[in-house]
């Protein structure tokens, strides 16, 4: 071996190369969770094709006691279980890294590199000897390599074993069979391989009370807690599991205990147009309703978004963004629906957007979206993405304030109508742009109105009068301004040293950005960061830009959509906002962000206040 073997404890990246549909997912997750049970944070990510079975798939686990949860890039150890991608997988290992493979069928020496450590176990042969059933041979091969890794990485066997006990509680046969496979792999590695290798996991106390869950499940749960009772949807990657989770949680939490009947309704529509139509119909009729979709669905729903905006009907849309345009990269991540959501539909429309950064915020912001939609009587978009949505991640535990009550907004009641309160559906009574509405069936003779996408006067009567149109548009603008103070506030993080450089980012970029800030600081580059969490942008966002000489806008799309939105809404000098763009479909990394910012500052010859010249400037 020409390169020293990598030696790292609680800080490395291990990657599993598998075949889609081979049952490896649960084994790989078992491995990741076993590390968490040892108190060491991990950041797992799936890299998978748009295919059911047969194509290559990878699962990456970043082990980071420091707690960095963004993608790191690189790979210290490859578990190469897919012959199809062998050459690519072997080439991906960092110099000094490790290759783990199934040595049942010997590969020629030319297939290996001389700067890595090769670790072979005859997994197929062992499984063939142990199991008769073909499916068992496949599934337990996966568990077996997890067992071997426990030994190689010096992990606690009991952590993984306990996980299997928890996972299959009540199914003793499964527990026994899985633990047996785990033990077979573990014992073989102990006996035949140099355990431990240079990569090790040591018990720590860095996980705390955090949970590991994927963002889509969290969105589904958030919809339950947010009071959604109606979901109209159409399956599309990567958003499908939002509704699947909603359905599952509804069955658990929303079934009438007396008669088993559902306190919710979920309809798989014939297409995205129908799904948003159902949401709008339900919202109009006073139910909290939502849909989940991705970029192509957003495109199809545009006309309805305009109707809901103009007719002022509450609706919640969870958009789990993926590679675009067109069919794009359906199983890869991007943040490229920002503009198509912010200004969705023809004409002068503006929509409220929320930007969760992780699964916790997928839960909390989805729940909040229903309050906002009813308060503002308008569509509210939760802009998640594949990286947050389909990957499990460590996040704060879900919490809920039991004293919280749903904000149903300005609903005029039977009693108010009966008391003679003036009801003008589009009348701006309070000066905040938000009118009062009534729900069908409220009163026999008062408060009924006709909802339409055409222009109307403040009393909802059809009108083509210019003054009525202008009144309406100005009121909608006032309402949008009101929303500025209702959406979640941005999160400001000041640099340790004074600086006139800022960074704005949002959503799934957050973990990489946090780490990038630390990397830059280590190099003497200090940046203040602002994570926007909602649109319309609050005044704080514009103030942040105004107070700095240069602001980097970090996002995961090709055309700098967040930057465009800031320029457009804040009337900001474009020169002040510097693009940092990542859009190859993989999650952005701290290395990428830090490198781009350092390079740009070097090009601009900008030195941080009171700091010596940076090392990266050379």
């Amino acid at each position: 071996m020409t390169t020293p073997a990598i030696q790292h404890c609680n800080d490395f990246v291990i990657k599993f190369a598998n075949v889609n549909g081979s049952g490896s997912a649960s084994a790989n997750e078992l491995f990741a969770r076993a590390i968490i049970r040892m108190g060491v944070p991990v950041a797992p990510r799936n890299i998978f094709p748009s295919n059911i079975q047969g194509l290559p798939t990878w699962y990456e686990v970043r082990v980071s006691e420091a707690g960095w949860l963004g993608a790191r890039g690189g790979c210290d150890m490859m578990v190469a279980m897919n012959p199809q991608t062998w050459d690519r997988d072997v080439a991906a290992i960092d110099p000094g890294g490790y290759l783990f493979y199934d040595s049942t069928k010997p590969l020629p020496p030319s297939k290996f590199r001389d700067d890595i450590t090769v670790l072979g176990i005859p997994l197929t042969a062992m499984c063939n000897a142990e199991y008769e059933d073909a499916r068992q041979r496949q599934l337990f091969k996966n568990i077996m390599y997890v067992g071997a890794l426990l030994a190689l990485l010096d992990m606690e066997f009991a952590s993984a074993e306990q996980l299997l006990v928890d996972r299959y509680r009540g199914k003793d046969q499964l527990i026994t069979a899985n633990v047996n496979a785990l033990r077979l792999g573990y014992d073989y590695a102990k006996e035949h391989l140099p355990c431990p290798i240079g990569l090790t996991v040591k018990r720590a106390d860095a996980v705390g009370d955090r949970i590991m869950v994927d963002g889509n499940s969290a969105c589904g749960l958030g919809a339950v807690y947010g009071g959604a009772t109606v979901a109209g949807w159409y399956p599309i990657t990567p958003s499908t599991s939002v509704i699947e989770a909603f359905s599952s949680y509804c069955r658990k939490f929303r079934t009438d205990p007396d008669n088993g009947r559902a306190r919710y309704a979920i309809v798989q529509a014939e297409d995205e147009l129908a799904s948003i139509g159902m949401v709008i119909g339900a919202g109009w009729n006073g139910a909290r309703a939502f849909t989940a979709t991705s970029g192509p669905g957003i495109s199809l729903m545009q006309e309805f978004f305009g109707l809901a905006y103009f007719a002022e009907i509450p609706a919640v849309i969870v958009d789990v963004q993926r590679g675009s345009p067109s069919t794009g990269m359906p199983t890869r991540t991007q943040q490229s629906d920002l503009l198509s959501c912010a200004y969705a539909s023809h004409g002068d429309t503006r929509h409220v957007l929320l930007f969760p950064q992780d699964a916790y915020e997928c839960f909390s912001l989805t729940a909040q979206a229903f309050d906002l939609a009813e308060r503002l009587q308008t569509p509210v978009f939760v802009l998640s993405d594949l990286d947050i949505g389909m990957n499990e991640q460590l996040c704060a535990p879900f919490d809920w304030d039991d004293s919280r009550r749903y904000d149903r907004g300005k609903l005029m009641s039977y009693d108010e109508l009966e008391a003679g309160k003036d009801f003008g559906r589009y009348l701006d009574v309070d000066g905040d742009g938000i009118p009062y509405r009534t729900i069908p069936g409220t009163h026999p003779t008062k408060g009924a109105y006709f909802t339409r996408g055409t222009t109307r006067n403040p009393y909802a009567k059809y009108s083509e009068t210019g003054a009525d149109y202008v009144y309406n548009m100005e009121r909608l603008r006032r309402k949008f301004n009101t929303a500025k103070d209702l959406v979640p506030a941005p999160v400001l993080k000041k640099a340790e040293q004074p600086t006139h450089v800022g960074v704005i980012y949002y959503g799934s970029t957050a973990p990489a950005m946090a780490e990038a800030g630390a990397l830059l600081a280590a190099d003497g580059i200090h940046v203040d960061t602002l994570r926007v969490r909602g649109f319309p942008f609050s005044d704080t966002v514009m103030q942040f830009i105004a107070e700095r000489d240069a602001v980097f806008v970090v996002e995961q799309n090709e055309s700098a959509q967040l930057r465009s939105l800031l320029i457009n809404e804040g009337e900001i000098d474009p020169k002040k906002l510097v693009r940092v763009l990542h859009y190859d479909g993989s999650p952005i990394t701290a290395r990428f962000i830090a490198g781009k910012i350092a390079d740009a500052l070097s090009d601009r010859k900008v030195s941080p206040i009171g700091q010596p010249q940076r090392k990266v400037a050379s």
Partner: protein
Amino acid sequence: MTYLAKPKLLAADAPRNALGYTRRDYEGAISTLCAGCGHDSISASVVQACFDLDIEPHKVAKLSGIGCSSKTPDYFLGNSHGFNSVHGRMPSVLTGAALANRNLLYLGVSGDGDSASIGIGQFAHAMRRGVNMTYIVENNGVYGLTKGQFSATADKGSKSKKGVVNRDNPIDLATLALQLGATYVARSFSGDKEQLVPLIKGALRHGGPAFIDVISPCVTFNNHAGSTKSYDYVREHNAAVNRVDVILPKAQIEASYPPGSLRRVVQHDGSILHLRKVGVDYDPADRIGAMNYLQERQALGEIVTGLLYVDSSGQDMHANLNTVEKALNQLGDAYLCPGSKALEALNATLR
């Protein structure tokens, strides 16, 4: 165009229904459609049906798409909430509304352009999904608002006002509704209120997807020689299979009808449809027979009207979804939010 308020004039001796309402209480804004439009006759039939059935107007939600026909819900049931949605998408909006509150009456109004072209998918899926609604298509075979183009229900060989001959095959929405699972399918003619009003009444009382295709001539663009949806053509080719009477549960007047010529269909809510046969041995309980009959008669140039099919045993969407009886939009926080303890338990499973 500005909204026109209808004068509130009422004769002192105007008849009142069991709720104390007059017909005027079921009217809406003044129609802005062309004088003589068949759609206005349909609006009048809706008013009459709701008045006769003692329906509380505010317990009706009326939804439509885009087009002449879709404007009409503004012209009846002024104390009902209405929704003029987007072209062809009324069925999904209505479905959502019905999901939110199963305890209102849902009336969907659409046109042949709205339902047979852009909206044919949503029409189909609302039928197969079993949405409890009355879906009325005001069918004139032409696009009125864009001034005279053929719609997808225009018969092959029929002529437009400008003399253009339609080369495409027509879509028969009644046949489609039969195939797709509607449990109440009827066809009528806007010029025949005697037939149409009871059909609407039967549909409103039906506990499932009820579809009525109403031939409604467009006086401006499709009421000329060569049109198969003109008043004259429909009157000449109308082949009624039955006449319908709707008997409410509270009424005890069944004995007043002569036995032998009736078919009696009890609906979910206890109301009874009395079908008086008109000249043919027609079985409205036979879905496949109904489809065949429609096709046979259509080939002969006849427009079959009446109650074509009814099945009172079918389940609606809410029954299929097993939802609670209480309207979902009236469930309070306590029924909806599982609370913090449930979250703590969930958190424990995610570590």
